[in-house]
């Protein structure tokens, strides 16, 4: 098995899985019927992408694994999602802020990945672009609405952006698997669009009457399996059925 390719796929796919799980928590709990459905739609889009990635990873793993094994039967340190996507739905501002900060990155990554010589990754990215474009439209619209809304919505949106900002730098951290795949011409050098990312994010924040944070400290570790305290709880929810009834299927 190509260990680097396997890990590289998970680095991308785990972001979608964990964010989908976070958004799924809001099913039936969204602030209004309309936003509830919108957020769970996004969750399902991400889960669909996750399945395609995991099916590919399972195929190349050569260990007779299934997509479900990869999704449900790893330990915390084996999940490679960034810290940003595992942050909780503290309030609607956090849900939107997390989504927005991820969507801008996600779309830039997909736009590059669609040209990868790895045909499977390119095909998944190409299919995902339309979905992710809509996610970004939805989340940036809401950032602007809340930021440029009332005094209270502005305060809450700013609070979320300030708290989540420290997790943005990690998006551009290159793991060993990523470096190896870039060298092979298959992977994307995410650090190459870091400047573009902060420029685009800052423009939306300014339009939303929000202040762009000026952090000196950034947290990282998720991409290498070292997660925040929230991750264990997410996995407990996510893995409960498979751990309790091993090998169960729908």
């Amino acid at each position: 098995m190509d260990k680097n390719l396997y890990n590289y796929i998970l680095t991308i796919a785990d972001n979608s899985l964990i964010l989908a799980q976070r958004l799924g928590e809001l099913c039936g709990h969204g602030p209004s019927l309309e936003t509830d459905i919108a957020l769970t739609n996004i969750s399902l889009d991400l889960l669909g992408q996750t399945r395609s990635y995991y099916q590919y990873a399972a195929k190349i793993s050569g260990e007779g694994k299934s997509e479900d094994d990869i999704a449900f039967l790893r330990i915390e340190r084996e999940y490679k999602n960034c810290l940003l996507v595992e942050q909780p739905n503290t309030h609607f501002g956090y849900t939107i802020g997390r989504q927005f900060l991820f969507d801008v990155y996600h779309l830039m990554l997909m736009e590059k990945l669609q040209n990868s010589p790895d045909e499977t990754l390119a095909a998944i990215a190409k299919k995902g672009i339309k979905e992710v474009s809509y996610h970004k439209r939805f989340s940036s619209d809401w950032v602007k609405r809340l930021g440029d809304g009332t005094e209270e919505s502005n305060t809450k949106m700013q609070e979320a952006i300030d708290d989540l900002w420290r997790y943005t730098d990690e998006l551009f951290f290159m793991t060993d698997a990523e470096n190896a795949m870039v060298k092979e011409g298959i992977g994307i050098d995410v650090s190459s669009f870091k400047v573009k990312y902060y420029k685009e994010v800052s423009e939306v924040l300014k339009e939303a009457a929000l202040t762009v944070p000026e952090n000196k400290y950034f947290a990282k570790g998720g991409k290498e399996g070292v997660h925040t305290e929230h991750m264990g709880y997410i996995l407990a929810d996510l893995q409960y059925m498979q751990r309790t009834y091993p090998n169960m299927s729908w």
Partner: protein
Amino acid sequence: MKKNWPLWEIFVRSKNGLEHRHFGSLHAADAEMALENARDVYTRRNEGVSIWVVESKNITASNPADNGEMFEPAQDKVYRHPTFYDLPDEVKHM
């Protein structure tokens, strides 16, 4: 918050060539949000190719109390249906 969101009527065209049909209503702060909400609420199972939204307050509706004078006079005027013609057999699809 929800109290302040006005109601919108949603019209969806399910296929090119068909007309927009009333699908239902939802709440949104403005037209743009109404479009996005309609997309998520009414077209997520591939039901549409085009959406119209119109704020419900802009619709003028007939009053059910006036149904007598509005609609009943038409009930006994069957001759307004074009059913009194003998169609030649050659005319198809009528």
